[in-house]
């Protein structure tokens, strides 16, 4: 890095010397020519001035100063050989010389400044163009792949820098372009971790923390001919690109998930529909056989078994269908005023068979409690809870169904006494396809039901949870807002 810089300054010195030498040679030529051809003498000062101004315009003030001094020396040296023109003997000549030097310096100063301004404007214009180009290219960047390598290459190429390093804190990776003779990894990460932002004019290294708002998201280190403002701008553009990449990645992830879910739901839906017809035929056939009579006890038993299993399969199919539709967001929500009592009574009535061996207690705190909800979804939720309680409670124990109002919510709960649900499972049993290891081989099930219950509660803006211990038994809760404040949406 350092050798690179000294290499550059050496070149600059050489160029300076060359420019001065050219000017001096021109001055000496004019002086020599005037010496030989004295008729040129009255305009010699103007010729010098011309050389000085040209030098100032093309090369710079210091070159012009050197040239004007050389003009004074050359003129003095040549006139010293002609006594009538000697400076010491001719005060007018001294004044002329002095005026010449002053004018030359002033003019060079002015012209150098003009040239400087022009160059600066030109370089600024160039930088603006570079920035514009960089912005354009980042906007067109392919966001399907990580942006770091592309950014480093772009900065390196567009701003014509010696070396670039970009650190993406989110992916925790450093991307380098150009030639670094120190490790860009560590350097870029240090800038991020210690939040150092500076520009070193000696080495030409600029360091920036890439921030989104106030949050650091990475860092940028450049070496080469840029300015602090340009570095700031580059850092901002990198931050924006990082952000766009994240948003894009997030969006495509969500979109992919949604599509997968939809596809899964469609497959499930068509499967379940395809099962219905054969199931109906089997059940009609088996029960028809029973109706026709003439069956031996064993035959009747087997026909009964076919019927029973077909019904199980039918229930499962229905449940799959409902889940698939819930997940695909295809369940039409019909919000109506339904009393909590009616809800519970209807669910209990529908589950009469399954509850036959259980004692059921219904505790409704407020008989007039009316909810705005989708009756079908709420029925599904309660059916699931009660069905679950039947499956996992001790034989002959009581299932208590309760609804009470707490704040702005109606809390439905189904309590039963049965095996304790391990702490680790209490959240996960509401996940689809999750079945507690404790129960997996104890009761039939698919691991779908409770996820449906949770979905049903969520659609109403509510939530579900479960408590379980040896003494108190197991209670499944569902909190449903009394008044739906926002539009129900899936």
């Amino acid at each position: 890095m350092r050798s690179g810089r000294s290499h550059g300054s050496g070149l600059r010195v050489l160029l300076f010397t060359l420019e001065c030498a050219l000017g001096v040679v021109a001055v000496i030529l004019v002086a020599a020519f005037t010496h030989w051809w004295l008729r040129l003498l009255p305009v010699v000062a103007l010729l010098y001035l011309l050389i000085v101004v040209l030098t100032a315009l093309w090369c710079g003030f210091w070159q012009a100063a050197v040239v004007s001094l050389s003009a004074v020396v050359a003129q003095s040296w040549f006139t010293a050989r002609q006594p009538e023109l000697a400076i010491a003997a001719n005060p007018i000549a001294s004044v002329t010389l002095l005026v010449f030097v002053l004018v030359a310096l002033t003019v060079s100063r002015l012209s150098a400044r003009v040239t400087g301004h022009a160059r600066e404007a030109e370089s600024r214009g160039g930088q603006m163009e570079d920035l514009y180009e960089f912005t354009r290219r980042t906007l067109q960047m392919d966001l399907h792949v990580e942006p770091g390598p592309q950014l480093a290459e772009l900065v390196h190429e567009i701003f014509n820098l010696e070396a670039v390093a970009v650190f993406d804190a989110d992916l925790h990776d450093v991307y380098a372009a150009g030639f670094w003779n120190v490790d860009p990894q560590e350097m870029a990460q240090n800038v991020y971790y210690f939040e150092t932002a500076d520009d070193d004019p000696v080495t030409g290294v600029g360091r920036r923390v890439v921030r989104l708002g106030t949050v650091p998201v990475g860092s940028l280190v450049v070496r080469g001919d840029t300015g602090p403002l340009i570095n700031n701008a580059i850092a901002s553009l990198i931050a924006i690109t990082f952000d766009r990449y994240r948003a894009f990645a997030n969006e495509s992830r969500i979109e992919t998930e949604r599509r997968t879910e939809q596809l899964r739901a469609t497959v499930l839906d068509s499967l379940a529909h395809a099962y219905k017809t054969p199931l109906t035929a089997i059940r009609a056939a088996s029960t028809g056989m029973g109706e026709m009579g003439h069956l031996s006890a064993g035959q009747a038993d087997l026909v009964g078994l076919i019927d029973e299993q077909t019904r199980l399969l039918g229930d499962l199919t229905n449940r799959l269908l409902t889940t698939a539709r819930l997940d695909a967001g295809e369940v039409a929500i019909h919000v109506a005023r339904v009393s909590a009592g009616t809800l519970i009574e209807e669910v209990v009535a529908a589950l009469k068979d399954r509850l036959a061996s259980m004692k059921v207690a219904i505790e409704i705190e407020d008989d007039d409690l009316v909810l705005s909800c989708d009756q079908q979804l709420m029925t599904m939720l309660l059916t699931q809870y009660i069905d679950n309680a039947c499956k996992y409670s001790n034989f002959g124990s009581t299932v208590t169904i309760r609804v009470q109002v707490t704040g702005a919510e109606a809390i439905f709960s189904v309590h039963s006494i049965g095996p304790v649900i391990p702490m680790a499972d209490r959240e996960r049993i509401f996940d689809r396809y999750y079945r507690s290891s404790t129960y997996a081989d104890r009761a039939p099930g698919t691991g779908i039901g409770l996820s449906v219950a949770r979905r049903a509660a969520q659609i109403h803006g509510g939530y579900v949870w479960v408590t379980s211990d040896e003494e108190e038994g197991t209670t499944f809760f569902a909190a449903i807002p009394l008044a739906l404040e926002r539009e129900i949406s899936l």
Partner: protein
Amino acid sequence: MTQPGIRILVVDDEPAIRRALRPPLVELGFQVAEASRGEEALQLLRSSSYDVVLLDINMPGIGGIETLKRIRSFAPRLPVLMLTVRDDEEDKVEALEFGADDYVTKPFSTRELIARIRSAVRRVRAPARPEDAPIEIGEIRLEPAKRLVTRRRIPVKLTRKEFDILYCLMSRAGRVVTYSKLLTAVWGAESREEVEYLRTFVRQLRKKIEDDPSNPLYLLTDVYVGYRFADAQMFLEGSSNDGSPAAEEMPDGEHAQESEDVPEDEHEPPKAVD
């Protein structure tokens, strides 16, 4: 128990279902004809006569509901039973509004289906009942003229609306009455959406006429569709026939054990029905 002379038209696009239905129906003495489409069924109905139609709701072509509408245009009293699937509650209601007599949910049991067919045919064949003739079903007796309801011969105190609901249901005993039909009959057309209103009244009614209101025997719920009052037949036949009478009215027909609970003595033979 055979059914001499009952001609039944089975309309379903699934050959497997038609195949499963034919043998038991034939064995039980029904005369079975089949159609795989609504259009075909309409042709058959125009060329020959039937006592009852089993009509699948989801069929290619004009479909079940449209077929029903067209049947109703020329045969307003022909009993039509719809074959539906579980999550088609709206279709069920629509079919009932367009004049279907009843529906059976797939996968159904043949026993339940046959019970529904018999009950539908019986209703049509029964002589027309005078408007204010007393209705007696099981232990419940309702006398429209006196606006009196008795249970086990003890008068039951009902409010005016409760009586209207009970009358509406009992006069159509065995058939489901949709929420909106019931609401319209009792409160008028502008109240047809107030289902929750109806539920409250039904809850009160059950407390007055049922032994166990949460496990009703008479006033049954057809979830999402409406209410139905138990068919008089199930209390009449009691233990006399091949199966469980109670099963007739249960959505799934799996409740054979409950037949023992049905009181079959202690009451006069009903005069209102049959």
